[in-house]
């Protein structure tokens, strides 16, 4: 009997939810094990990095890589698993879009370190110990992976064959992809998105949608939304309009807005920018008709202020893969470099 193809799952900068989603395929795990040799998954299996290093290049058929690239170790593992896998799949929002870890790109590495280890209200760090790549202690030097300047997606470091989006990907969708491979069906062109639809969440959402006109936005706790009307029409920032279908519309089904975890739809590069375009299109301009320019600006600011964290809301799952990518972290680094240069002079 020929050896079973090898499959692996790795977590880089992630929460572990993707592994739970995999395990949630329940008894299908047995079918997975029947058809694949599940060789590597730090969350579930005891194989180590050196076991992978010992493999031939391309020896593993599939690697599901979840998590964003935050540290030099994440990047090393991305390169290693790329080399050892025939098909490398960006699995989940962190690997495909940067997800929550990439929101760190809205600030700098230094500011993050300061908040977490220096000035946090629950900290008592009088000697200001901050972890770094090398720390010298009497016994010698301790090393840690480098905390990179920005958080990247898997594709920012290596060539990616497919993407399975979601935070986490829905278990049924994960199984559908695995079952597809087991059945020996042909795979779509490289670069395709698997385990998701090619429309938006609105397609699955059962709510009644009408022409939209919104004069202010509400946070979810501020109103009790009607259960049948489109949430966006009720002033709730629902990301369903700019989010790839695939989840089945679970959140709007339970009266909560879509938060965008399946990332941008087919053909859209920047989910947040699309949301900004769409929100701009539905804000009621009628009250602004007779206003002067200054008053219009103030009015727009007032309306937008009803969404407290625009970037965090609209780019929650996709900042790392968006047009901004490195975001402020890159911009600030550039500014700092310029400032340092002029100071030195």
């Amino acid at each position, binding site marked *: 009997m020929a050896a079973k193809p090898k499959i692996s799952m790795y977590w880089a900068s992630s929460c572990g939810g993707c592994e739970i989603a995999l395990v949630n395929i329940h008894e299908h795990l047995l079918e997975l094990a029947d058809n694949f040799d599940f060789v590597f998954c730090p969350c579930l299996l005891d194989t180590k990095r050196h076991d992978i290093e010992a493999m031939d290049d391309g020896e593993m058929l599939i690697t599901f890589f979840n998590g964003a690239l935050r540290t030099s170790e994440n990047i090393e593992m991305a390169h290693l698993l790329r080399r050892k896998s025939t098909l490398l799949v960006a699995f989940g929002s962190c690997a495909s879009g940067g997800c929550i870890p990439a929101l760190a790109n809205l600030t700098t590495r230094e500011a993050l370190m300061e908040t977490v280890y220096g000035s946090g209200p629950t900290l008592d760090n009088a000697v200001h110990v901050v972890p770094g790549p090398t720390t010298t202690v009497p016994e010698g030097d301790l090393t840690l992976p480098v905390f990179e300047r920005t958080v990247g997606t898997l594709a920012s470091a290596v060539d990616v064959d497919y993407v399975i989006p979601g935070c986490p990907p829905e278990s049924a969708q994960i199984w559908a992809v695995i079952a597809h491979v087991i059945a020996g069906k042909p795979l779509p062109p490289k670069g395709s998105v698997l385990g998701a639809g090619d429309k*938006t969440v*609105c*397609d699955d959402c059962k709510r009644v949608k009408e022409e939209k*006109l919104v004069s202010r936005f509400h946070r979810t706790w501020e109103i009790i939304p009607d259960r049948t009307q489109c949430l966006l029409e009720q002033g709730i920032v629902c990301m369903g309009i700019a989010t790839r279908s695939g989840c089945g519309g679970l959140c709007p089904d339970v009266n909560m807005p879509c938060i965008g975890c399946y990332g941008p*739809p087919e053909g*859209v590069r920047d989910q947040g920018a*699309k949301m900004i375009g769409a929100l701009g*299109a539905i804000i009621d301009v009628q009250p602004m008709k007779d206003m002067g320019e200054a008053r219009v600006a103030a009015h727009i600011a007032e309306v937008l202020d009803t969404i407290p964290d625009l970037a965090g809301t609209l780019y929650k799952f996709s900042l790392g893969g968006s047009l901004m990518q490195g975001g402020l972290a890159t911009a600030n680094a550039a500014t700092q470099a310029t400032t340092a240069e002029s100071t030195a002079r």
Partner: protein
Amino acid sequence: MLTTGDGSMETTVGVYFCHCGGIITEKIDPALVRTAVLEFPHVAYFTEISLMCSEEGLGDLVRDINERRPDRVVIAACTPREHEKTFKRALAGTAVNPFLLQVVNIREQVAWVVDDPAAATRKAVAGIRSAVARVVHNLPLQKIEVPTRDETLVIGAGPAGMQAALNLAQSGRSVVLVEKHPMIGGMPVRYESVAPNMECGPCMLEPMMDQVLHGDAHDRIELLTMAEVTGVKGFLGNFEVTIRQQPRFVSEVNCIGCSMCVDACPARTPHPYNCGMNDKPAMAMPFLGALPNLPYLDMDACVRATGEDCTACRDACPIPDTVLLDDAARTIERTVGSVIVATGAGLFDAGRVPQLGHGAVPGVLSSIEFERMSSPSGPTAGKIAAPGDTEPQRVAIVHCVGSLDKEHCDYCSAVCCQVAFKFNHLVRHRFPEASITHFHRELVFPGKEAGRLLLHGLHQEKNSFVRYGRLADVRVVDQPNEREVQLRDGAQWTSAGRYDLVLLCPAMVPGDDTAALSALLDVTTDRWGFFEELHTRMSPTQSKAAGIYFAGTCHGPGDIPHAVSEGMAATAAILSSIVPGRMMELEPIRAEVIAERCSGCKICLSVCPYRAISFDEANGVAAINAVICQGCGTCVAACPAGVITGAHFTSEQVYAELRGILA
């Protein structure tokens, strides 16, 4: 020729560089550009032409393209606003589709604005790199052709609407002329005289009205009086119009206008065309001399409305089947290719400035009330009288009632100064000894004729002029047998004279029906509530919806010559845009919904300034009407799902262009 637009490596691009007769090469070194550009992917060759827009240059361009047969063409020359169309036309003589051309502006944006020749050359190279990167993704597009209807709907039969209807009918076009009132002629037909030359309003308009009713082309004008447009759908070349016509209760065909029914009518109601200053029978002519010469029955005022079986009018009528007491409203449907809105303006309600006393103090009249009072067809048969039927010897005329006033209308109403001086003229003519006081803010008399009216009024011995600052500082107080005009200085009100008559000249404001009609037509209104032009100066009679035009005061204050000119202007636009038998050719730069990926969120529905997007309920997807779409790209940007694409401006093309310039 490769037409896939996939940017594949086999796609070849020919680059043409115009010297602009030395203007471009003064700054940009073509030899350096050539070396750099020939290194770019896809670029097959680099050709210089000394003056590409000249006949010789265009000939060289076409000949060279036909010899070398590139898949795509990039032209580095002046701004595309100047000659992109010229070059596109030239491409008709080649195998290259005009949309497979990309023009780089290296004159206005480089040679003319960059001082350093080295920097200018670098910038030109970057521009060409960007155009090459884009053009390999361009797709060949074909112009869209649609059939059109050459009938026109004209709404409103005042001077503007009548002029438009006449011009169209005289050119052989059919016109549906819809008028809300039972008579035509608009506002000036109700005026005893028209400024600045004091012509009689009805007499001045009579030839025009006669042409509409009986002229050589009248059989091409379908006049629907007492009718209003209730529905419009469609687009330039094909509007489906629904019209609701109220019953006149008089046969337009049989009636000879003898008025015997009017004399027989026992019911009385306030006269709507005399501002309620007198009564009229329920069956009546709108006013003496109104055209068409037909009475109409106001059924709300008729005693039949109270259940009485009165047939006095029918009994008095000498012609059988002419008074039609069981007449009913009709719904009329027409298909037209264009629409002219000529619904006129309204008058600012002087009652909104209560201290002026209009409606409360006797002898305070608005301009239209005084127009009617001075008209022989008005409530007093033309007798100008103060309260108590006395001769007015002291007359105050208050200008700018609502105009040039931030609290009301912040614009000048254009004609009221002339109206005020016209009133001066009328009063002076009847009562040579009367003293007349003008309370004014500004005096506006533009144009070659109005000045005479101003000079005439300014130099009369018994005229005086008082300039006031704010309308809020003017008030009219009722005194026994007279009215006192008072002006405020600080907190103090002081008398500015006592008068027999006070005439107010209110601002011109949007007509009552403007908001409703703008919604029906899907055209916008401006911040004052007038219809909004495509461009107030450059396209003043065109709405933002293709095929819908404005004429006259419906889109802002103006005078009669202005209205007539605009009626003609709108007609010219229609005659040149819709030619019978000619298909309408549309630019192929349009937005399109990828229906199979649309999730029906309806974000796009409200953003289209042309109302080109509708919702296909059966399939749950948005649909764009390619004829109405103007390719502005608003919906492309707004579509959160990325399923609306703009032809010739796809994301792929725009990204390629950006990557090219940033490389």
